């Protein structure tokens, strides 16, 4: 009886360990960001792309409107791919687009905008990538949707597409 009980305990214990390790094996070992968690908008200072004047984030997001912060760079190939969708979003009057030019050569960035059009209300310079860290970004392109209460309500990692544009339009309605 005692032996049976010990065997039972050992089997339960081994099964428990198996379940834990099996679950661990199925879990991806790479960073998967949470895309729909409400976060406060970071407070920062950044230089304006065209005037090179330092501006406070409070002044950048001053209007009671939905904002989109898009992190982009002229050297980023997917950014070219998503640019037409940003141009489409620019037509929506309830959204203001803020561009964050990430670790870029300013001349190349200006050429990029000249060539593909400017969908942004304002472009900020992030020469060392620290501004992107304030937003919780870890690459380009990344897009953040900010509501009227100045909360980041959605994060899109990678280039935006038709489906995401529709999702954003629906969210700001």
């Amino acid at each position, binding site marked *: 009886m005692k032996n049976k009980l010990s065997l039972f305990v050992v089997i339960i214990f081994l099964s428990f360990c198996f379940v834990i390790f099996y679950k661990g094996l199925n879990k991806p070992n790479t960073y998967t960001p949470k895309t729909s968690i409400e*976060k406060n908008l970071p407070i920062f200072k950044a230089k304006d792309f065209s005037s090179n004047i330092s501006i406070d984030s409070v002044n950048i997001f001053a209007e009671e409107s939905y904002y989109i912060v898009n992190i982009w760079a002229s050297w980023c190939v997917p950014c070219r791919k998503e640019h037409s969708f940003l141009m489409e979003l620019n037509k929506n009057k309830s959204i203001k687009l803020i561009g964050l030019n990430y670790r870029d050569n300013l001349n190349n960035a200006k050429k990029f905008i000249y060539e593909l059009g400017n969908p942004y209300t304002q472009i900020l310079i992030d020469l060392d*990538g620290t501004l992107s860290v304030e937003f*919780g970004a870890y690459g380009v392109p990344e897009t953040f949707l900010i509501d009227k209460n100045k909360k980041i309500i959605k994060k899109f990692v990678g280039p935006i597409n038709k489906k995401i544009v529709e999702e954003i339009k629906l969210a700001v309605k």
Partner: protein
Amino acid sequence: MKTLKIFLVIFLLMGFSQQKFNGNDNELKNKILKNIRCLICQGQSVYDSESDFAFSIKLIVNEKIKEGMSEDQVYKFLREKYGDWIIYAPKLNKNTYVLWLLPLLLFLAGGAIINKNLIFKK
């Protein structure tokens, strides 16, 4: 001449204390960077990585230490931005109970088995 000597001693002491302060800051910075995971690398800490992401995190950590943030405050700041995954040593919460308590349970169970066997042998 005597005044000059006093000034020289004060100047050297100030330089030494400044160096010591910078040294402490560097030690803290390296300790923090070694405990932060590079999110775009495979199995590398930010300290070991040369990626763009690691470069930006190194600058941010340096800035936060200069602002007077403690080690825990820097971790808290990064957790708020990227979640628990960015820190190598996870905090004790409902998702990590098993991780923290399983080794302890195994240790206690092992101890109990050894103890029981020794008693039986006696």
